[in-house]
């Protein structure tokens, strides 16, 4: 940056080359497309105003205002239903233009949520009223109105500037009239709308040329400024909205965290299995050999003492193996690796209450989901065994339509209450980490049915 001359040359290059760049072309195309799209709404508004005027003019004829009222009502309903719908569709076109020409990809907002209870027209109205992104798209269209005028101005800068450049070249062809004849001066475009330059003589065409040159050089920058404003609006009003984006982002990162936690637990279990557990098993085996070898020796107190020590070490090693196995199973039950149905069958086989198991899982759920479902079933079975005095438990796992429904029911005494801390609250929490739901129906006197709904994928 030190050399002022280099800086100046660089500036000059930028200014002179700007009109020829791909960026200038794309931005001009964006403005060109934006003008009709932006002004389109104005046409609709004008049409609506005309409609309202006609209604207003007609209503006195009927000497009552109810016609006007009905017409206004119909208009309002139409607006509420159609405006967000049209806004979304136009918004999609603008987003595509923005992504293709401006290199500003804007994510589409989430689809409108159908209003739950109502159907038909009331449903449409409710959906339309509640469609935030749709109304934001309408707002964009409204703001786009003046913006489209500015974009039109940018287009005029380009077109007028280029036209002005041509004046000196054709002047001679059309203006070699005989002396004495006076022709009207030819107007040339200036950057000031409504103030054209009047060109009457050949030397004046060079004035037009100069103005044109200035306009062509300035046009890319005018375009850029207008487009920059449009781009901001595009991002703010046609995107998913900051909150929706944040929610999407949080959902994504939470899914990653849940998957990662499941994968880590699996890894810990695997490391234990391939590391500490196998070493300990080998150690116990060697201690067992040593024990037998010592048992075969006859000797004095020293051998007796050694035998006692090895015996103790052997016992401890076996106990440690058992504890380590329980720990590993609590971290990640290895049988889950062969599928949730196998794991549930294992649970059922070892339940203290007879279990009736039915699994229908055509598609294997994500590992994290399987783990949650497994621990839910384990905890619910343990609860049933501890508190329900039930004679039978049913466990049902169904995977369809993207969700896994696990139902554990018993014919016991009921009265299961998450508020009374039976592990149910913890389960509900675990289920919620993947947007799952847990429903508990356990009236006093029974029966109990706990239903856990989980997505198949995190």
């Amino acid at each position, binding site marked *: 940056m030190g050399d002022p001359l280099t800086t100046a040359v660089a500036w000059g290059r930028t200014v002179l080359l700007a009109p020829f760049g791909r960026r200038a072309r794309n931005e001009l195309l964006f403005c060109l497309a934006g003008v009709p799209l932006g002004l389109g709404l104005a046409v609709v508004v004008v049409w609506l105003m005309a409609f309202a005027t006609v209604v207003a003019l007609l209503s006195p004829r009927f000497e009552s205002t109810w016609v006007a009222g009905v017409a206004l009502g119909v208009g309002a309903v139409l607006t509420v239903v159609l405006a967000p719908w049209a806004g979304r569709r136009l918004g999609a076109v603008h987003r595509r233009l923005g992504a293709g020409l401006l290199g500003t990809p804007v994510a589409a907002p989430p689809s409108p949520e159908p209003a739950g209870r109502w159907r038909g027209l009331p449903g449409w109205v409710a959906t339309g009223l509640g469609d935030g992104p749709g109304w934001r798209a309408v707002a964009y269209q409204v703001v786009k109105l003046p913006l489209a005028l500015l974009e039109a101005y940018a287009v005029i800068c380009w077109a007028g500037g280029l036209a002005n450049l041509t004046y000196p070249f054709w002047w001679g062809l059309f203006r070699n009239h005989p002396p004495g004849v006076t022709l009207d001066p030819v107007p040339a475009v200036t950057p000031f709308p409504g103030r054209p330059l009047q060109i009457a003589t050949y030397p004046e065409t060079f004035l037009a040329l100069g103005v044109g040159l200035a306009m062509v050089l300035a046009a890319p920058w005018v375009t850029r400024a207008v487009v920059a404003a449009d781009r901001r609006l595009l991002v703010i009003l046609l995107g998913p909205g900051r909150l929706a984006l944040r929610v999407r982002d949080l959902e994504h990162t939470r899914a990653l965290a849940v998957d990662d936690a499941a994968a880590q637990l699996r890894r810990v279990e695997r490391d234990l299995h391939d590391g500490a557990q*196998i070493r300990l098993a080998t150690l116990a085996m060697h201690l067992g050999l040593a024990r037998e070898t010592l048992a075969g020796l006859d000797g004095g107190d020293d051998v007796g003492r050694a035998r006692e020590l090895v015996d103790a070490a052997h016992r401890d090693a076996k106990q440690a193996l058992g504890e380590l*196995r329980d720990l590993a199973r609590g971290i990640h039950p*290895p049988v889950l*690796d062969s599928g949730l149905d196998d794991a549930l069958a*294992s649970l059922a*086989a070892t339940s203290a209450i007879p279990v009736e198991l039915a699994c229908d899982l055509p598609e294997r759920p994500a590992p994290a989901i399987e783990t949650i479902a497994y621990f839910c079933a384990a905890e619910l079975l343990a609860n049933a065994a501890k508190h329900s005095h039930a004679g039978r438990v049913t466990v049902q796992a169904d995977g369809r339509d993207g969700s896994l429904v696990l139902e554990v029911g018993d014919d016991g005494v009921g009265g299961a209450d998450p508020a009374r801390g039976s592990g149910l609250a913890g389960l509900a929490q675990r289920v919620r980490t993947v947007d799952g739901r847990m429903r508990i129906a356990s009236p006093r006197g029974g029966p109990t049915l706990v239903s856990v709904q989980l997505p198949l994928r995190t």
Partner: protein
Amino acid sequence: MRAVDPMRVVVAEDAAVFREGLARLLEDRGHRVCAAVADGEALLAAVAAHRPDVAVVDIRMPPTHTDEGLRAALRLRADHPGTGVLVFSQYVETRYAARLLQGTAAGVGYLLKDRVADVAEFLDALRRVAAGGTALDPEVVGQLLGAGRHAKGLAGLTAREREVLALMAEGRSNAGIAELLVISGGVVEKHVASIFAKLGLPPAEGDNRRVLAVLRYLEA
């Protein structure tokens, strides 16, 4: 130390330290380790080549580290009925036991790796399997007995009868049970008859059939 009756063994275990320890233990007790391999494919090849009396198979082996050992064991049973298969694992699942014992319990074992710490017991189980018998881990049997499905039926048994039932399910012979419980063979026979009567099981000849009968009852 020389074994009375040396066995020819193939070991499949992916953890080298345990594989070598086990091979040394077997050799030390006078048995012959024909091959010690690290995955299911190599196991099948080794068994085909050596026709051992028994194969000791780890459940979790490469490449997937889930249940390839179990699958290899099932194939061994189909392809080489003369070779006993002792499946060895760091945890036991009744589900795996059920898969392993499907159809027949002849020449099948399923034990926790911990059991190798009691060398004599382990070798006894291995010999049973090699001879076409059964060896089921006490943990599996305990899980099945603990599952409440048959609480009513089992409640009718005396404490001694429950002990005998568990040992039967592990695959032990009457003589083996008598030795472990320090009672006479005749007493064991009486207990067994009583258990079968109380549970309403049809009398079963041979230790393997007896295991299956008991397991069917417990798993039903």
